[in-house]
């Protein structure tokens, strides 16, 4: 063919069409070819070092559906190592916290910051569904960021509440009291909330109908104060402050509570007020470890109203 080449010395392939149309040899630049073969070499090397092939027949064990590279690297292994590193950092704090009481944790600024930061997730998982992401409460569920506590806001009481849960009770008075008495008591409660003082007639009816048995002689929900500062309550609301247990509060709301009570079985319109127990001994078995309850106690206490 070369002897017929009408374009000698041109470096063509010897393929001609239509007299002068021909294919030339224009090889890619050397650097390009080097890069190309280097890429191929990279690919081969990668296939040897890292998992790249699916499992060979009979090699699959159901869990690892691939051929391992000789480095033994897998993404899940790397992930687990990462988790281990994080756990190692957390362990230092967690070990200290395990030995401490909630009060001691609050005294230590570093541990307090750690507890607040890491319990945020716990609070989001277990508490925020009812009490709101920042403890701002929801209709029917108490605000945790204020200083009004049905069962006491000390660290001990908060631990108790989280561990064992709470279930308040108030009799439905729709059939016990007359409409006029209910009306008068509702007005009395609204007066108490607004200025802390109720009418004499109101106080008289309050005592006569036995409200003080639960809400206390001063209507503040306290039945007795213990020498250590803790209060004895049955979870009845403090009627003298401006915070309403059942929102929106006010006359209509108070009347509803008096009429239908709280947690009364068989009463259709009764108020629901149940907090489940979160300890491992509680009804919801295995919910939270003592360590988690301890940290959540600190977290709730620090939301703004701990006592």
């Amino acid at each position, binding site marked *: 063919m070369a002897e017929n080449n009408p374009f000698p010395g041109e470096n063509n392939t010897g393929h001609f069409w239509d007299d002068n149309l021909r294919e030339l040899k224009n090889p890619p630049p050397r650097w390009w070819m080097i890069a190309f073969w280097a890429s191929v070499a990279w690919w081969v090397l990668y296939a040897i070092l890292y998992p790249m092939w699916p499992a060979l027949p009979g090699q699959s064990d159901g869990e690892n559906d691939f051929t391992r590279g000789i480095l033994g690297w897998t993404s899940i292994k790397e992930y687990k190592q990462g988790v281990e590193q994080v756990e190692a950092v957390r362990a230092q704090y967690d070990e200290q916290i395990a030995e401490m009481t909630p009060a001691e944790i609050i005294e230590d600024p570093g541990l307090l910051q750690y507890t607040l930061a890491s319990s945020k997730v716990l609070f989001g998982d277990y508490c925020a569904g009812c009490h*709101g*992401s*920042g403890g701002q409460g929801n209709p029917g569920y108490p605000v945790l*960021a204020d200083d009004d506590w049905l069962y006491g806001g000390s660290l001990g009481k908060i631990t108790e509440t989280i561990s064992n849960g709470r279930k308040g009770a108030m009799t439905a008075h729709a059939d016990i009291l007359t409409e006029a008495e209910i009306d008068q008591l509702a007005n009395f409660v609204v007066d108490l909330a607004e200025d802390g003082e109720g009418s004499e007639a109101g106080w008289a009816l309050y005592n006569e109908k036995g409200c003080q048995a639960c809400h206390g002689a001063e209507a503040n929900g306290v039945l007795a104060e213990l020498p250590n500062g803790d209060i004895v309550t049955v979870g009845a609301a403090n009627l003298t*402050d*401006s915070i309403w247990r059942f929102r929106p509060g006010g006359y209509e709301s108070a009347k509803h509570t008096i009429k239908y009570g709280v947690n009364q079985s068989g009463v259709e319109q009764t108020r629901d007020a149940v907090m489940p127990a979160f300890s491992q001994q509680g009804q919801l078995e295995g919910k939270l470890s003592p360590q988690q309850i301890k940290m959540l106690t600190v977290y709730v206490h620090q939301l703004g109203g701990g006592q």
Partner: protein
Amino acid sequence: MSENLSGGAQPAGMDEIYAEAEQWHVNTGNETIHAKRISGRWRTIKWLAASVWLIFFLGPYLRWDGRQAVLFDIPNRQYHLFGVTVLPQDFWMLSLLLLFFAILLAVATALAGRVYCGYFCFQTVWTDVFTLIEEKLEGNPAQRRKLASAPLTAEKIRVKAIKHLSWMVIGFVTGFSFVAWFYGAGKLWQDFFVGNANAAVYAAVALFTVGTYVLAGWLREQVCFWLCPYARIQGVMLDRTTVVPTYDEGRGEPRGRMQKGETEATRTTGDCVDCNQCVAVCPTGVDIRNGQQEGCITCGLCIDACNAVMDKLGRPRGLIRYASLDEIEGQSVPPMIARPRVWVYGAILVLALSGIIYGLSSLAAIELKVLHERAPLFVQLSDGSIQNKYTLKVLNKTNEDLMVSVSVEADVPVTVTGAEEPIAAKHGEVNPGIVFVKIDRDHLDAESVPLTFVASATQPDGTEVQATRESAFFGPRP
């Protein structure tokens, strides 16, 4: 060249284009450029400019206050510049610094073309040093070309091996010095050679070694032609008044040897004797007599070469010289100060620079951030007052731990809980704290009340430092 192209529609003009196309040469690196090294004024200036890079190698060994004077400590997020420590929070200054250098490049280009490329660019400087080594080992360009085509002998291997080894050593020193700015020079010397430095250090040094070796040893002017974006950007910023190395066509043409019998007085040729020295010395292999072109890095070496030849011939210097297109064409050249571009660029430079100076001189010792809790926005307490929760972030930018007291200023009486004890602020860290502010319902006559948080501390030397932050208190609609 443009004059030739303008006659393109005519058959005669087409011939010219074809004639020109034959000369058209695109440098794609098929042929290694072996530039001749000569001495001269611009050569000296080039070395002086290049010597600024010694700072890059020696800078890490400068000490200040018992530590490395300039250290970019990335793991600790601290950037020490002599007496000043800059934290990431102050990094807005970096944008001003980048702006400053970008505009500086623009100013320099508008005034004097690609002087950066010609005198200061690391690609130019490192290539210059690499080719100097090459010249010392392999001889002048003619000897180098001969050696390249010579058969492989022990001597050739020896010379080539020494050359490549020296190049790699320079590449290594370059990488090592670069890393020293970030890792600390002393620590790097201690850790590097016994394998105690981290993988990032070794990777960076390896990358620099290979990068320097390949870019300055092999790619050389190809980087300027085909890889460097600055070369392209700077090229379009030239105008008719920009001073660049220019061949004085009017004086030089027609170029060529003098005919026999002609004397200096009677010669028909121009001043250019077509000796090609300007091409021989050019590190990017361009012929400056074709006019300003993409390959020209305005290094001025052709000026040195031409002047030397003119001196020998007894003709005036400056056949190739730094001149603007207007000047060569005999048009009036406005002084630099009358060019609006200079003023606009200059103003931006001054602004960026004053921003940096202001930033560096007013670096606060502590910084306070106040994050208002949003859920709940506010809480009603049992006594009817309203409470808001704030997360404080105290950044201590000093080199000492500080006890930072926080207070709250407002137009109405406020009760602050959580700030009774000062926050222990570790140096160089963001230290959190939680504060509750309580305002009596009677004092709340709006849904929001402005508050000012004040953080103050006393440094060990007795100086008071303070930081304030505006925030707001929210309550129910009154």
